[in-house]
């Protein structure tokens, strides 16, 4: 194997190994932007409590009247004391069910610590009204899932958006994004939170998953579904790339200026989605001496980017420029100006007709709409002679 091939192979292997090293990380399913990370330093078992006859309202009765997502709706000592005789345990009596501090607050020794380790329950970055849902007879398990097999309730028992959309479908309940999501002052969704950035990911139920390489795959969706895009994005988000003057670091990989011709030949519509060929591309190519129609002081000297002139221009063979131009004019106009083509394809030069089949039938209609481009190659009299006027 040649040396560059070996280097590529080892680089790929090392890259895959690097990605594999992080496989040991623990799981996460809920969005951190919506439900920030929690710290719950308590021992609790929902399954045991439900089996013992408790129901949801035994401990979470406040949820029935809760109207804000900031409401915690968690039990405090009075709720626990319905079964756990905390005062008796504090006096040293052995009680059943157990009620010592350490039993529910592992590691807490009241003779040493002033208080048990604090809980951290950041407010979810959502609007939510428990009361409205309870009043509409929505069961707790509809959103929180079946708790009979759950020990400690965590973020994993909070609903995912797909669950919400089972009712919030636009008819049973509102499907407007801001019904649940927080708004920024502009009226669009707030995307940035201290706990993370809200970004449709991982099986997004709207089909707008912004997964890996979304910057290269969002075109069809953005072109036909702009009202959805506008829910989150301002024009500046689009223009960051689509009106870019400078190399966007997240889009073009390293050394892209050197390597871009290879990608441009295979995928010129992608280039055209951000760059105007006759401004951005042709201008830079003329500056660097690649473009043919630049000022004479800037023209190329020693390097050619096409096959030999004889093959490219004079020989009617498979390497002729006409084949390349027919396939992808964007490649031509990223370097050339109209004058290059007019040098041969004009009544005033070699009179080589580059129009595709069928053009003759529609030329009259085209000339009636705008004859200026016709007159770059033809005279009024030749247009008449060809039946285009």
């Amino acid at each position, binding site marked *: 194997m040649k040396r*560059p091939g070996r280097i590529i192979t080892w680089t790929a292997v090392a*890259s*895959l190994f690097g*990605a594999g090293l*992080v496989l040991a990380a*623990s799981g996460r399913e809920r969005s951190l932007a919506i439900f920030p990370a929690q710290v719950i330093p308590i021992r609790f078992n929902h399954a045991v409590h439900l089996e013992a006859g408790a129901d949801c309202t035994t401990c979470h009765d406040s949820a029935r009247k809760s109207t804000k997502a900031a409401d915690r709706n968690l039990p405090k000592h009075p709720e626990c004391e319905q079964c756990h005789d905390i005062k008796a345990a504090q006096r040293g009596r052995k009680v059943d069910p157990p009620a010592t501090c350490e039993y529910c607050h592992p590691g807490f020794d009241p003779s040493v610590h002033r208080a048990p380790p604090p809980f951290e329950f950041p407010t979810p970055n959502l609007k939510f009204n428990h009361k409205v849902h309870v009043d509409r007879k929505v069961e707790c398990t509809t959103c929180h899932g079946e708790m009979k097999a759950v020990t400690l309730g965590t973020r994993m028992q909070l609903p995912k958006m797909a669950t919400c959309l089972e009712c919030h479908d636009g008819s049973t309940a509102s499907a407007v994004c801001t019904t649940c999501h927080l708004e920024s*002052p*502009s009226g669009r969704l707030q995307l940035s939170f201290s706990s993370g950035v809200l970004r449709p990911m991982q*099986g997004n139920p*709207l*089909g707008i*998953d912004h*997964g*890996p390489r979304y910057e290269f*795959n969002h075109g*069809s*969706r953005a072109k*036909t*579904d*702009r*009202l959805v895009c506008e829910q989150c994005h301002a*024009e*500046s988000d689009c223009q960051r790339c689509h*009106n870019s*003057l*400078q190399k966007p670091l997240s889009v073009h990989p*390293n*050394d892209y200026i*050197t390597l871009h011709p290879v990608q441009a*030949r*295979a*995928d*010129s*519509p992608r280039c055209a989605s951000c760059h*105007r*060929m*006759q*401004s951005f591309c*042709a201008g830079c190519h003329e500056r*660097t*001496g*690649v473009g043919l129609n630049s*000022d004479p*002081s*800037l023209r*190329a*000297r*020693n*390097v050619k980017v096409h096959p030999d002139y004889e093959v490219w221009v004079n020989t*009617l063979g498979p390497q002729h420029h*006409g*084949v*390349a131009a*027919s396939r992808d*004019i964007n490649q031509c106009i990223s370097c050339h100006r*109209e004058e290059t083509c007019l040098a041969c394809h004009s009544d005033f030069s070699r009179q080589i007709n580059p129009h*595709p*089949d069928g053009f003759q039938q529609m030329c009259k209609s085209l000339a009636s709409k*705008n004859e*200026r481009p016709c007159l770059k190659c033809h005279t009024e009299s030749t247009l008449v002679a060809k039946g285009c006027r």
Partner: protein
Amino acid sequence: MCSSGVRSAILAAAACGFCWPNEGRPSAFIVEARTEAQMYQIRAYRDSDPDHPVLLPRRRIVQYLGVNGFELITGEDLGFETSMRVYADLGMQSGEAAKLDGVHSEAADLLYAYARFRTGPLEVQLGRQTYVDVMDYMAFDGLRVRYLSKLGLGAEAFGGLWVKGGMLLGTSVYQPDGTRESDKRRIALGAPNTNPELDDIEPVFGAKLLLENLGGVSAAAGYRKAWLGGKTDLERATGELRYGRGRGLNLTAGVDWDLIISHLAQVRALARWDEAKFAVSAEVIRTSPVLSSESIWYYFATAPRDELRLRGDYTPVGPFRYYLQGTLSQYHTNINSALGLATALRDQGLPNSLNGGGSAGAAYREGSFRSALDVAYRTGYGGRQLWVDLTGGYSPADNRYSLDGRFSVANVSDGFNPLLRGTFYGAQVWVSYLFAHAARGSVALEENINDFTRSDFKIFFLFDFRAIL
């Protein structure tokens, strides 16, 4: 030019407008600024040979400034959004830009500046604004009105002047392609075949009928026409269709018909099936170049390009997700059968018009760490290319700073340019620091090594400011 007295009065009036305590004062102003500076050099072909390249300096700085105001009248959705860009290429030699069409050594662009009012089903936007649909991405100075009833039926209309590079504070990015953005330079030089109409204003009008979310179906039928120098520059009709009801099948499709040459300009359709842990999608796209009817190329090349993309995403519970994508594309060839060249299309040596390839990748995000690996391969028309891109980053919980790295390897073989063959290595390190709640500065360093440019080093500097007042 204003006298200093008039300027003072204007400033005082503006200051009063911002400070006067009254019921109608805005609930929020947002000021956004971004500075991007780039320093490196690019290899030029001119006056050079492969052993003695001429290096052109790039010393570019771009300053973006956005000022936005919302709820200008309490309780009313009335606001404005603006973004302006000032640009300077300090590395460009004196007088060089004057020889190049489309290149500016300094420029000021008003990217958008519009006032928006929304009440119930009605939305009105006035000013410079962008517009995106299946046809293209455009910008115009004018008025857009959209009405969408509760039933989901509605209409949209817009009209104004197309934003062009030759206008004051204009940018050519959205201008129809295929012509110089302006011919002023060549007219001044007395060059032949100039096109003074390129600098004329370009009125544009469009309208669309809308259907939003009727049983999960949305659709639109649109029309757009633009005039340049009294002649039609663009005339199109479009159709858009979407279907989606949560998880499961999602469909989007669009068709763009060119009414000037009675030709299918674009058609695209995307079908996607989403489940909790996976998604599969198929996308077909047919595109033809979108050019101004002022351009001779508009009447030369009408052969379309077809593309098929198949993609699968696997999103297990956990910090990882994976994707696999296959791409097939084809350039069509449309040569006049009366030409001698048409016989060459049957030649065995005709360059392959088909491109095939694919990419695969994994992304990881867990707490403060993030990483992604992408491998992409494509071969066919224009050459062969293999890209391996590994990125990784760390941001602590307080988001005070972030550290990102990117390592990429490309093995390419360009079909036309023999210099572009071989293995190209690049590495990038990006450090970002939050100076204050509203200000973040970033520095990116890039080093590239290959046989073509041997070695080159780039520096990028970014400064972001965002304040809600």
